[in-house]
């Protein structure tokens, strides 16, 4: 097959052309906007991820040009590849929306809903998902499943009760680190992320499990209870790191760097994984070359009380040159406000 062959696909009536082998979800991301199915377990940078959470279910109303039969069941868009002429319904299908509502409800019945004390609140995908697709109340009246909090290493805390078993952290350990010591143990609704015996996840890239976790199950102990994310200001910065790309987001409160994360795209996926030295040990502004404020989606709670020309983060304010180079971003922020 020639390399420039493209499949014509339509998602909620919007046409797009993508190379063969593209998944429905990625085709939808190419279009962007509301028709992109939500994904809690799929992670484009982690091979083998996806298919489990079922939030990205869509309806294939036409299989392909050659075989136009619709698919009998809803399919996981993150793991189903497109065919030429395929027609997909996401938000135009009541069946899909109903199923998704069901999945959100399932994900929430055993979730502790402890957002007020959870460090992930404000950047939690489950929170976003339930606002967008869930019900306002629960029909579940039984005791929720709980687990004890455990420390896996001195920098990462595992709060299993919040976990939705997306398996992303397991893929990180498999694909980024030399030796996996944690995994999924038990089965069914008793399954849990654990090391089984007391064991520390200790290697240069282990901190990435925090970034890939869609909920507050794996959190940064150096940031624990320090602040709410919407009171901190994300700033892009880099350093010359021998281990990773060194491209990060610094989260400031006043003059202080409260935490360091990888840079995340609009789907919450990191652009590049970072090492633990960058994440945990470099918390002084002097460690970094500041690039400018991070562009935050206006719909995000993090964009609350954020950048405008009059009130840039202090670190940017001090650096007039940087203000100049980031003019475009300020302009955009101003427009949004």
């Amino acid at each position: 097959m020639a390399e420039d062959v493209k499949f014509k696909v339509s998602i909620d009536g919007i046409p797009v052309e993508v190379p063969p082998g593209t998944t429905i979800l990625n085709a939808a991301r190419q279009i962007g906007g509301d028709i992109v199915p939500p994904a809690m377990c799929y992670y484009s940078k982690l091979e083998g991820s996806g298919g489990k959470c079922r939030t990205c279910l869509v309806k294939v109303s036409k299989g392909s040009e050659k075989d136009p039969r619709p698919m009998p069941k809803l399919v996981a868009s993150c793991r189903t590849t497109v065919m030429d002429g395929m027609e997909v319904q996401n938000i135009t299908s009541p069946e899909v929306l109903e199923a998704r509502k069901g999945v959100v409800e399932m994900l929430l019945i055993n979730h502790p809903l402890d957002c007020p004390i959870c460090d992930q609140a404000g950047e939690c995908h489950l929170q976003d998902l339930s606002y967008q697709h869930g019900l306002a109340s629960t029909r579940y009246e039984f005791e929720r499943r709980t687990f004890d909090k455990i420390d896996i290493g001195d920098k990462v805390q595992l709060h299993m009760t919040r976990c939705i078993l997306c398996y992303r952290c397991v893929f990180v350990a498999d694909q980024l680190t030399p030796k996996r010591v944690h995994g999924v143990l038990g089965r069914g609704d008793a399954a849990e992320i654990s090391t089984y015996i007391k064991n520390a996840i200790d290697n240069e890239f282990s901190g990435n499990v925090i970034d890939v976790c869609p909920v507050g199950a794996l959190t940064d102990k150096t940031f624990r209870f320090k602040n709410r994310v919407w009171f901190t200001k994300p700033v892009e910065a880099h350093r010359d790191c021998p281990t990773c790309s060194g491209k990060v987001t610094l989260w400031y409160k006043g003059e202080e760097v409260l935490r360091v994360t990888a840079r995340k795209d609009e789907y919450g996926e990191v652009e590049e994984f970072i090492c633990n030295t960058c994440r945990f040990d470099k918390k002084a502004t002097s460690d970094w070359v500041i690039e400018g404020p991070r562009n935050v989606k206006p719909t995000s709670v993090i964009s609350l009380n954020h950048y405008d020309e009059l009130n840039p983060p202090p670190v940017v304010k001090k650096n007039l040159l940087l203000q100049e180079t980031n003019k475009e971003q300020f302009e955009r922020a101003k427009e949004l406000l």
Partner: protein
Amino acid sequence: MARKLLLTHINVPGIRTFDVYRQKGGYRAVEKALKTLSPDDVVEEVKKSGLRGRGGAGFPTGMKWSFLAKPEGVPRYLVCNADESEPGTFKDRYLMTHIPHALIEGMIVASYALGANTSYIYVRGEMMPQVRILERAIAEAKQAGFLGKNILATGYDLELYVQPGGGAYICGEETALLESLEGKRGNPRIKPPFPAVSGLYNCPTVVNNVESIAATVPIINDGGEEYAKIGIERSTGTKLISAGGNLNKPGVYEIELGLPVEEFIYSEEYCGGVANGKRLKAVVAGGSSVPILPANLILKTLKGESRLMTYESLADGGFQSGTMLGSGGFIAFDEDQCIVRNTWNFTRFYHHESCGQCSPCREGTGWMEKVLHKIEHGHGTFSDIDLLVDVAKKIEGNTICPLGDAAAWPVASAIRHFRDEFEWHVTNGQEAQTRNYGLAHYADPLEPVM
């Protein structure tokens, strides 16, 4: 007497051993296939026979075989699914215990047809005695030159191994089985790719039920067309039915497909009627995951026709008034059985056996179990019944593998046909602890279709 193809010699003393099995005409199918037929000829015979997968799904076996990808230089595998775990089903255990060579012979024929040189029989771990029986049978067959290198001097090589599972119903799902065989957790794979393209060790693989594989022996011996003469419509051949529950003579029976359900339950040749002279309340005809039907609907379809033991007749009426032949796990309930309690029991089973990978099944099965437990123990409300129907609907069709459907169907069907019994549990919570609802009030809620 009905014709038997699989259990013909079941009562012959020593039939478990190679020598007696061989004396009774065993391994003729291997000789015929390897010496006179090409692998494609064997596939063709199986296609002609109309044999459908006996594990539950009923997919045509010959067609499944013809889907197997055959890239150059890549090994192909045949894996026998002997992880028999569906509540109500115990036919494979019976066959492997008493006539292990029927399975071994079928494995050789099928492996030859598929071009597999290494094949595995994945037996559920609890059947350790059967693992030993099969291992002994394999050693005997190898000794006699029917396994190993250059079988019967035809140049065909085959090694056959038995693999025990570890106690997980989900490993009956073919991709979970393959994961388990690779030494991993029994998490079903996300499809596509299907095993026919990428199965065991990422190689093309066919997974077949014990009975399907054993059935290839009479198909090769007598020819596919001869096999297809037995049965009705697209339900050809014979089928092993596991009869359990409140029956006079529970056990494994080989029936010709097309046998009326009524005859199966009441005739002396088969189950000999309901135990203890009681009346029949309900039947689960194909293993616990198929819809339960009240007695009137299992004996006759809504059109008033006699219900037959075939894939089509049992499914007549769809899920509104029909069910499925499934794996042939036939469970009879007498008038004193409590449908609510049984539904709770089945749901507890699916909750216990959910692998936990995908959210609707992981969370939904436990939720349904808790609600059913509440109703069964006299604390339910009317809205709980509707909630169950809705949760079942949210699971069905939205999961990675069919376990979600299998968990949803028994609940949905029990409420569809026995709603009054559920409601009685709600209104008479205390009384329901001491006596059962009985037979009297259930009625088919649907109007007959003309």
